[in-house]
């Protein structure tokens, strides 16, 4: 079956989720990925939104993470202070999804500024919840198109921490979460090696290593156990297209 780049990324991200995971969900593709996982292999996934919603069961695809459809029929709603303390800082969140304008070799993310902070060339939205999600969720995943400008060797501004300059630096910093576990792109999947450097560990069917290397801003290393991902299945695509995003806002 034909599929779009967004469908490919969403399906591969969904497969990284485990049944019973408590997931801090963002809008867009992460939201689609979580809902897809819940309808397939992870029926007990608990979706948490930074707006203070726990166990949402959205009846429609929300544009924002504060949509009323997330509230009606949810398990619990609490204040934002509670979400960030009782849930995230306390260690009750298994998975966080992150995004940003730049992701570097060690999975550090920039969502704040291109250029200097005081005189930005481009002012981006800023951290929102991501500084703490990146630090404290047990596992973090990143979904992003694979483009050289999005993957610089070093980000202009560290909005949220990956492995800093290497895994030991994160360990020394003493943050509780495990850091980024995978970056899902439209070409394949990057994962941290033992030093926290993102290396190519999987390619989607039909993609060449050279494509991934050419679209990465650092000298991308390739795992000696490089895998090929499974194509999105018919049922996965049906759920995405018919149930989750029938008007194709995100998956087109």
């Amino acid at each position, binding site marked *: 079956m034909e599929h779009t780049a967004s469908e490919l990324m969403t399906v591969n991200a969904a497969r990284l989720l485990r049944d019973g995971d408590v997931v801090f969900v963002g809008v867009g593709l992460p939201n689609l990925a979580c809902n897809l996982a819940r309808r397939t292999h992870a029926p007990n996934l608990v979706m948490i939104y930074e707006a203070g919603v726990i166990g949402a069961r959205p009846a429609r695809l929300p544009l924002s993470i504060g*949509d009323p459809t997330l509230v009606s029929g949810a398990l619990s709603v609490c*204040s934002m202070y509670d979400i960030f303390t009782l849930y995230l800082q306390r260690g009750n969140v298994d998975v966080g999804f992150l995004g940003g304008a730049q992701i570097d070799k060690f999975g550090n993310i920039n969502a704040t500024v291109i250029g200097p902070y005081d005189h930005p060339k481009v002012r981006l939205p800023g951290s929102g919840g991501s500084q703490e999600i990146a630090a404290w969720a047990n596992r973090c995943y990143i979904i992003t198109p694979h483009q050289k400008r999005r993957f610089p060797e070093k980000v202009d501004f560290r909005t949220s921490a990956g492995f800093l300059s290497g895994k030991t630096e994160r360990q020394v910093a003493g943050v509780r979460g495990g850091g980024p576990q995978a970056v899902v792109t439209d070409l394949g999947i990057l994962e941290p090696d033992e030093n926290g450097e993102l290396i190519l560990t999987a390619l989607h069917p039909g993609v060449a290593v050279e494509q991934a290397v050419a679209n990465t801003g650092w000298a991308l290393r390739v795992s000696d156990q490089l895998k090929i991902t499974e194509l999105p299945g018919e049922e996965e695509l049906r759920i995405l297209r018919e149930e989750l995003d029938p008007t194709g806002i995100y998956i087109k």
Partner: protein
Amino acid sequence: MTKLCSLAEAVSQHVHDGDCVYAAGFTHLIPFAAGHEMIRQGRKNLTLARATPDLIYDQMVAAGCARKIIFSYMGNPGVGSLRILRTEVEAGRLEVDEYSHFGMITRLQAGASGLPFLPMNPTAAVDLEQSNPNIRRVIDPYSGRELIAVPALHPDVAIIHVQRADVNGNAQIWGILGEQKEVAFAARKVILTAEEIVEEDVIRSDPNRTMIPGFIVSAVCHVPYCAHPSYTQGYYDRDNAFYLEWDKISESPDAVQAWLQEWVYGVRDSLEYWDKLGAEVHNRLKVNPRLASPVNYGDY
């Protein structure tokens, strides 16, 4: 002891040029009508604080109300940039005081609690801390480790929209709570806008639902549909179409000024604004009821 007055009176009496204003609400219950009223009354040099400035502050900045912004996520949620804010910040015309969401909310929690600061665990991402002298370190007296500290925020005025309140300002909220309670207690003054003004007995029938006690409230305004294009849980839907439309409008400064002329300066108040939106929008935002299960407090 009624505190009931019009929103125009409340803004005129309690919001002054140069004030720090916090119009509360995370996506939910954003008091757009109060933002528009501040624009109509020509407030200047405000410090605008909100975790997510959202369209309300994009509009107020476009109208020239602000000199500084305190925030943690400057985006049009699910859509993209807040173009006006972004342009003003890139041009260096708007002062910036920036945090993560947790940092911002912690500032409010400290302010609401009467504490000078509150600690947060470190995140290993230090660039923002190095750019903002308000973010400091504090030593945990048990382990000797460094934690992050942010200072209490005390807005001069909080504007809080709620589902229902009595004339004394005792107010109930359900759905997304965001930082409503924390802002109300952190601020020096509270202006309350409510979808419905109810009898005190309605409030007293469900005390666990009351987020804000009347005695910290300065003014109570009956403002139905106050939150549009944001929403009020159970009352009307979020106008996602307008959030997408604003992304287009705000591409052009002229279009923005024309929009302000038509929808803010050109209407007297939020009722006229709502009326002007018309039947198609009203219908699109209508919500069918879905009631909470009954709760029995017992007659003791």
